[in-house]
């Protein structure tokens, strides 16, 4: 068997299609049997104060260092410390790792680590029968059980019979391990997440050196805390090695990835690095104007660390000032960037319109989250597409770029910068909470092979009599010259009032306005974007599934499943939402049925229907969570089935 979970499905729930690997004993560091698996999904769950995100991050780093392919899904409440022990306070981190190429954090965990009753109750519905559940029995007190509505202790009432439950007194064992540490009980208890990490690291043969190094660095100023965490971590490992509770451990061999040097990276980090790289490759100083907002703040934090790249970060007084400052810097010749989430985009709309009118390069990064209004700040959604497309007064077209995976955020940032700099326009970069916080292995690019983004500022007058015409366009790109202050002879004034073509002087002339509106639209419509690639290996598909953004993982996993079942389905994933790839209309026409899964109520489908008169069918979910591969596979199966049924009728 290749999974710890027996599943009746023919396809094992893996989003990979790798062959089952027969069990073989691994060379022994332990007398216990070792079972070989091709993939595992683990979910760590506890109180938001239990350090579950850190635990997950560390397990991820160990797994990356080991060489597995992986995909992660952090899931946490917006409250920093929600009331302890309650269902809303549960924070979790899911990690899927495998010996083959995988695309999603997995539909259902094979292993759940539940630090308290709330964590068990909140996550139980996601567990398939046969899943392993490691529970911290110390927290299963009457009071804690009552807090989440357990009338009886689920560990004793038989309600968990479908699962393989490992009751472990994590707190007691941690305290025991640290009894000589000199730490107060409360401080020692806090290391129980590291005990759990140690146990899981033993179960899956993870390398431990990195975690010990990490702990000693993180707590460099409090060596006693560092050593306590290391001790708890080792105690967890040793517990696994010696206890009879865990009879076997598991081995997931490294994945066969394309040759190269890899690191693990989250979407927000990749996006931050993409911005730094865009600055380096364009030769322009990066200026980030931003206001803290979940889930985008990490980009502000990250870029503020890279001042030695000439990156300026400005924490503004509000969202409007954040983009205003970025636009002011762009006027001065910087690569202006603002980062935010949906509510912030709403506030920035007027300034984005000004940037459209000024025709200056500007990156607007929207890490989408659940909406409307404050919505679900820490949960994912992709419902800002229409806001990005149309959320401004007047005709104000803005290009839209959307990465499909965490690692792709790097290239998407470079691509957005290319468009902004080449066409002198604001550009939307639409990521989301899932991409932002999720992570995956990333093959490091060769810096010298990254796109050349160098720009030429205007240096010479371009009008009659040595005058400068700020709106005299490049006939190919329709971009206007970028003449930055400090350039003699090119002094000019621009603003949000309609401008006369060429001179840029204020103009209320009806024909000129009509011309300028159409020209700004044409400029965006003519932006060069690559054709969308269609994955249709059999060439026999009649159903096309079209996605954009972070749904790439689950859609692709679902497509693999359908194909493994003998179904023919074609897939296209859009990285450019405005303009659409030139071949998109022709691609859509080729298929009898077009399915568009989105984490919104059908925004891309609306655009496709409007633009191409195609009967695109939406499949929607707005639960603040990514799609599951199985769910989308069902949708695709149903589409194939309905086509067959129509034919037999």
């Amino acid at each position: 068997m290749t999974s710890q979970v027996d599943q009746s499905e023919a396809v094992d729930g893996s989003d990979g299609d790798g062959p089952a690997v027969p069990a073989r004993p691994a060379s022994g560091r332990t007398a216990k049997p070792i079972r070989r698996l091709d993939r595992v999904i683990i979910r760590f769950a506890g109180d938001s104060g239990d350090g579950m995100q850190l635990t997950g991050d560390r397990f991820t780093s160990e797994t990356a260092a080991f060489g597995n392919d992986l995909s992660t899904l952090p899931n946490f409440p917006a409250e920093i410390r929600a009331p302890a022990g309650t269902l809303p306070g549960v924070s979790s981190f899911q990690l899927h790792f495998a010996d083959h190429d995988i695309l999603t954090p997995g539909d259902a965990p094979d292993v759940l680590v539940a630090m308290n009753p709330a964590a068990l109750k909140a996550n139980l519905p996601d567990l398939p029968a046969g899943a392993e559940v490691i529970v911290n029995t110390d927290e299963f007190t009457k009071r804690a059980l009552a807090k989440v509505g357990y009338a009886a202790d689920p560990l004793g009432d038989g309600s968990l019979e479908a699962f393989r439950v490992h009751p472990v007194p994590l707190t007691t064992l941690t305290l025991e391990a640290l009894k000589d540490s000199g730490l107060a009980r409360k401080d020692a208890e806090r290391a129980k997440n590291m005990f759990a990490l140690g146990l899981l690291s033993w179960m899956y043969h993870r390398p431990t050196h990195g975690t010990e190094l990490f702990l000693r660095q993180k707590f460099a100023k409090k060596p006693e805390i560092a050593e306590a965490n290391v001790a708890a971590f080792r105690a967890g490992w040793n517990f696994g090695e010696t206890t009879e509770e865990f009879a076997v451990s598991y081995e997931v061999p490294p994945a066969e990835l394309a040759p190269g040097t890899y690191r693990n990276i989250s979407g927000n980090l990749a996006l931050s690095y993409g911005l730094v790289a865009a600055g380096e490759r364009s030769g322009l100083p990066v200026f980030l104007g931003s206001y803290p907002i979940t889930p985008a703040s990490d980009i502000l934090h990250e870029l503020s660390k890279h001042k030695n790249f000439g990156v300026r970060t400005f924490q503004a007084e509000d969202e409007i000032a954040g983009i205003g400052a970025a636009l002011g810097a762009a006027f001065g010749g910087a690569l202006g960037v603002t980062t935010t989430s949906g509510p912030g985009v709403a506030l920035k709309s007027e300034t984005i319109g000004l940037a459209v009118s000024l025709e200056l390069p500007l990156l607007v990064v929207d890490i989408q989250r659940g909406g409307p209004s404050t919505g679900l700040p820490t949960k994912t959604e992709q419902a800002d597409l229409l806001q990005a497309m149309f959320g401004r007064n007047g005709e104000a077209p803005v290009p839209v770029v959307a990465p499909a995976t965490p690692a792709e955020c790097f290239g998407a940032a470079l691509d957005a910068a290319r468009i902004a700099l080449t066409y002198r326009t604001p550009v939307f970069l639409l990521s989301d909470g899932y991409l932002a916080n999720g992570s995956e292995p990333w093959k490091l690019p060769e810096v010298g092979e990254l796109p050349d983004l160098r720009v030429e500022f205007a240096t010479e007058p371009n009008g009659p009599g040595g005058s400068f015409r700020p709106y005299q366009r490049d006939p190919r790109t329709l971009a206007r010259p970028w003449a930055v202050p400090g350039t003699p002879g090119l002094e000019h004034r621009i603003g949000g009032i309609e401008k006369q073509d060429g001179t840029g002087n204020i103009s209320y002339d009806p024909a000129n306005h009509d011309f300028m509106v159409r020209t700004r639209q044409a400029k965006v419509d003519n932006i060069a974007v690559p054709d969308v690639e269609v994955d249709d290996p059999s060439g026999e598909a009649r159903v096309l599934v079209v996605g954009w953004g972070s749904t790439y993982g689950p859609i692709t996993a679902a497509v693999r499943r359908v194909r493994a079942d003998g179904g023919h389905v074609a897939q296209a994933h859009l990285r450019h939402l405005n303009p659409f790839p030139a071949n998109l209309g022709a691609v859509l026409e080729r298929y009898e049925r077009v399915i568009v899964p989105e984490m919104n109520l059908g925004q891309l489908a609306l655009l496709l229907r409007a633009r191409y008169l195609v009967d695109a069918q939406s499949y929607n979910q707005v639960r603040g969570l990514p799609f599951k591969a199985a769910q989308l596979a069902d949708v695709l199966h149903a589409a194939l089935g309905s086509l067959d049924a129509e034919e037999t009728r």
Partner: protein
Amino acid sequence: MTDFPALRLVPKADGPQSAKDFKTDQEVRWCPGCGDYAILAAVQSFMPELGIRRENTVFVSGIGCSSRFPYYMNTYGMHSIHGRAPAIATGLAASRPDLSVWVVTGDGDALSIGGNHLIHALRRNVNLKILLFNNRIYGLTKGQYSPTSEVGKITKSTPMGSLDAPFNPLSLAIGAEASFVARTIDSDRQHLQSVLRAAAQHEGTALVEIYQNCNIFNDGAFEVLKEPGTRDEALIRLEHGQPVLAGAGHHVVRDPDGELRIAPRSEGTAIVHDAHAASPSTAFALTRLADADTLHHTPVGVLRDVSRPVYDTQLTEQLARAEERQGRGDLAALLAGSSTWTVGG
């Protein structure tokens, strides 16, 4: 020649300039008789004094009558959106220390829709010179009351009189930790230019409130401060290091409780104006002297001019320090981070 320490990073002009160099070919479109004309002329003839390259000067404005100003200055300029000029100018100044950046705004633009950006620019102390044209009315939208209009103002939007208490822009600025606060009047070119000079010398954000007449919707709002027959009694002309006098027969004294008061010259001793005082208390008290109804005892000149760290200077220093400590950024090293693994080919 005046020294402008705030402009030390701005390239010097090759030769002498004249007011004409700063005029554009655009037809000025303010109403005939508007106070903005006088301010424009005063600024255009003042700029050559700075001795910096014209192309390194930028005027940024928001929306409103005053905000058309950049179109008439032959420098770089941006006519942006309502209230946002301080934010946009902050980004420009913070990324280009070689520029002299000016913001032109009005009472509605700076104190109503853009109030947040104004106070934060002031507290941050970015190297910006903010010219706030205060005519106590909305002109461009045709005559609604503004956040500096007197209570009870009858306008199109307040036919029974406005209800809300106005801002005192200079009190607000001092409360927002402004390092330079001054007031002048559109029609007094000499005084206006002396204040511009002091503002241009100041390192950090300078707020210059310019009383400006809107002859269409609020004509004569500041007449008492301009008329030869009344102005000498109504104005308190502040000069650093000089006694604070109020008209021919009065001066400003400090009462035992610390409050400032207008008193006959025979009574007590006039306070001596100290624009550089570390404490903002006296400057704040001066902003409160004027009678709200009659404008009598309105101080003009530089109320406060203190030295404080400048945001953009410090930002640039942080970049230099980071490079000194870590070396110039190496992109390949950044991307690789500390934990990589290699898959063989």
